[in-house]
């Protein structure tokens, strides 16, 4: 279990994380979302022990992480830009990781190599961006960590590779009870693989929980009227978003769907219909509700 208690971090007097309390259960796949500069990468770097929190505590299974090799042996952090030694090959990078991670699984490595067409003895700096990402992921998964932290690691992969990776990760979670935290802007990706999700905004975790629970808490309802009405008619619902197309409205609001529909019916609409809502829309509406990107 990853436990963050009142974690704060500043860079050059700029507060990036403000008293974050957050828990990631063992064996879960946590998606970390948030606008640019929200502090997602900083949070992952603190969890992995790259940087030290200014205040608060970070523990993995009850042990502090920063500068603690025994704990860090069980954590692998794959940054948004994968690192490779100068002029190195995948084989050399394997040797590099094997030095530090005794858990490095040669069998897994061979299996991954079969699935990802990466030449083992070619210089990595000649690879495309996507191939470099695959290389990073092959190494990260071969390390077989208890905690895998992926910082936008799927970006740049083609759909086939993304799917293959997702399958791998899903299988490993089942097999090894691995804990995975994935930060990404692509919520559709996260929706497929994550069972929990957290939203970071304004230096804090503003939303965190099971994907299904979150999805169940947000509702998109289509409402049609026989006559012209104004948007503010829905103000009493505290909607996150209201769209108007003639006399038809699309309202996004939080709460119990039955209660919302009942309240909307009191406005005597001619049409009330719940529409499907995906995680990305939830993220967008939630952020709009917080004033992010609203003016665009």
């Amino acid at each position, binding site marked *: 279990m990853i436990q963050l208690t009142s974690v704060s971090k500043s860079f050059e007097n700029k507060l990036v994380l403000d008293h974050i309390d957050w828990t990631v259960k063992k064996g879960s796949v946590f998606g970390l979302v948030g606008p640019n500069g929200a502090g997602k990468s900083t949070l992952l770097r603190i969890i992995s022990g790259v940087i030290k929190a200014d205040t608060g505590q970070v523990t993995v299974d009850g042990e502090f992480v920063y500068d603690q*090799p025994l704990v860090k042996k069980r954590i692998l952090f794959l940054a948004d830009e994968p690192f490779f030694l100068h002029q190195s090959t995948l084989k050399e990078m394997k040797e590099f990781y094997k030095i530090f991670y005794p858990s490095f699984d040669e069998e897994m490595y061979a299996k991954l190599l079969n699935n990802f067409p990466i030449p083992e003895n070619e210089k990595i700096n000649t690879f495309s961006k996507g191939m470099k990402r695959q290389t990073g992921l092959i190494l990260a998964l071969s390390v077989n960590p208890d905690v895998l932290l992926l910082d936008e690691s799927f970006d740049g992969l083609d759909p086939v590779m993304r799917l293959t990776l997702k399958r791998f990760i899903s299988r490993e979670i089942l097999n090894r009870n691995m804990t995975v935290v994935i930060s990404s802007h692509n919520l559709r990706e996260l929706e497929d693989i994550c069972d929990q999700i957290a939203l970071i905004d304004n230096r804090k975790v503003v939303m965190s929980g099971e994907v299904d629970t979150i999805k169940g808490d947000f509702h998109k309802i289509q409402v049609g009227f026989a006559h012209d009405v104004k948007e503010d008619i829905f103000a009493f619902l505290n909607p996150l978003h209201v769209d108007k197309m003639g006399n038809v409205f699309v309202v996004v609001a939080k709460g119990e769907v039955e209660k919302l529909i009942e309240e909307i019916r009191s406005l005597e609409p001619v049409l009330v219909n719940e529409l499907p809502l995906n995680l990305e829309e939830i993220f967008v509406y939630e952020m709009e509700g917080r004033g992010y990107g609203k003016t665009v």
Partner: protein
Amino acid sequence: MAKLFSFNINGAYLRFLIKRNARFMILTGIAMTVLFPILAFTNYLIDGSYNEFVFTTGRVFILILLVLSIFIVPFLMFSYLNSKKNLDVYHALPIRRRDLYFTTLLASLAIILIPYTIVYVIGNVYYFSVISNVDAVLLFKQYYFAVALTLSILMPILFAMMNTGTGVDGLLYGLLLHIIPSILYGAYVTFGNAVLLGFSVADPSLFLLYASPIWSIFELTFNTSRIFPNPILISVYWIAFGLITSWIVLYYYQIRRSEKAEEPFTNRWFFPVISSFFTFIVQFFLYSAFITLSGRGLDFRTLIFPFFLTFVMYLILDVIANRGFKHLVRGIINFAIIGALSLGTFTFGTLFDGFGYITRVPNANNVEKIELDYNDPYGFLFSSYYYDQPSFSIQKIYSSEEDIATIIKAHKAILDGFKENDYKKWDGYSDLVSTPRTPLDATMYKQSSSVRIVYHLKSGAKIARYYTVPFGWASDLLDLVDSENVFKNRYPMLGNPDAVVRNTIFDIFDPLMSNSISLSGKVNFKLFAAAYKSDYLSLNEQQHNYPETPILGIINLTSCTSTEMCLSRAIPIDARYVQTLSLLASSGVSLPVLTTLDYVPIVVLPDATNEKSPFFHIQSLLGYTDFYIPYSYSETKEVNPISERVDYIEIPENRLV
């Protein structure tokens, strides 16, 4: 505290790093092999014989390559520090930061030293096999010094890397940190020579020996004659420096933030401190150099060019540091502050006699001993002609109260001489001889003496002064004549008879050297040396300087410490040398009789009416120069600098015995 010094080397990672950098080691190894054993072999192919000098040159070359690789390797090994993503990955690795740092540092040392060691061994095995009488201990010492100082050269570069965010800045400031001691020393010496009367450095190499590891590695390795300070102690000093700075750099390594990794400076104080100090000392150096070159003394017009030259230099550093001109105004203001400080210090230092440097003469009570070099045009105390005789050591140290008082008195007399002649109006003291623009008499001016005095104070400090002055100003030094040191310098073979292996000439002449008798086999040399020394030292300064006894004979002595190294002296004897005369008599030697000369020689005899007449000096010249007085004054009757002391007369025969 124990935690502070605890670290673990990750052996697997160490091997990995060394293996990964094998190609670099092979490359440097090949370069070193070409410049050491292959160079010697090539020389053999050309000359058909082996030359020791070529091997020494090879050793110098591979040491230069070693130093070059010390500058390159940290940028190979610690390059991840200059990339945010790389630093994140390294710091995410399950290894303590201090362990990662020390493992990488140890790998760097191994990568630097492995090729050097291999080539050094191969080259010297080859050297052993072809050159005889090889000093194996010396070779081992040279290797030890190179290894011992490697860390101390490496650490300033790593320190610069820890405070900068890019490789270029790291390299630039690593170089600056290494050249700052040399420029600082250069600025000090140039300033002293330009504006400080009597400026001298007690031990010219001492500062750099302790301030510059690069200078020190070459000095310790190749200056095999150095005995003080003890080279081993200096190497221990540099090992300690390397270890201490390793921990200072560790501190910066541990607090290094990846957010700042790609910025020019990760420590906001680093650039202002280093660049300001560097600019300050470069300005000081250039002011002094331009004043010396112009020969106009402290003239502010002379300082305009170096001021603006350093302004451009500072702006270039500022533009590199800020990657543009956005902080140009701030840079100009910073430079204005540095410029004002350096100009102010320089001006005050010049106007106020180096803050007391010029006028300071130590109190005799505080002086433990004095090192004196005195080169007068007449060779009164020391004749320079035997300075190239390495077989006899020169006695420079004066430690008796009387000698110390004499030298201090002479020092004060020299300063008085300068004061009376308004030294501040002179343009360059070091040009005293060649520059005819002083208020002194030109003839007297030409007859200059150089005096270098190094006071060893009881506190352990040293004060050194050097003057080139008219002979008369330093004449108080002639009072040292009764010093044992002077005796040993004038007659090294009598001062140290045990060093003499054989005498090729050991004769006694009559005063005009017209007739001689060999003393070899008749007089025991060691007994002679002891008797003469005893006689000489029994004379006081008054008796030395105002002899009233005529010369009875002149010993012509050529002594050798080995077959190649021989030294000649003409040693006068008169009635004051009682023990010597007694020894000669007891050995059955009669003084040779003067034969009639068919010419009238010109000699210099003391003027009995002149109290300052230094007859003993003339005695020392007699005979050695084959009875030729190398002054033209006696013929031209010109006024000459020692006219106060001696008269030049044609010697009538009745004055000679």
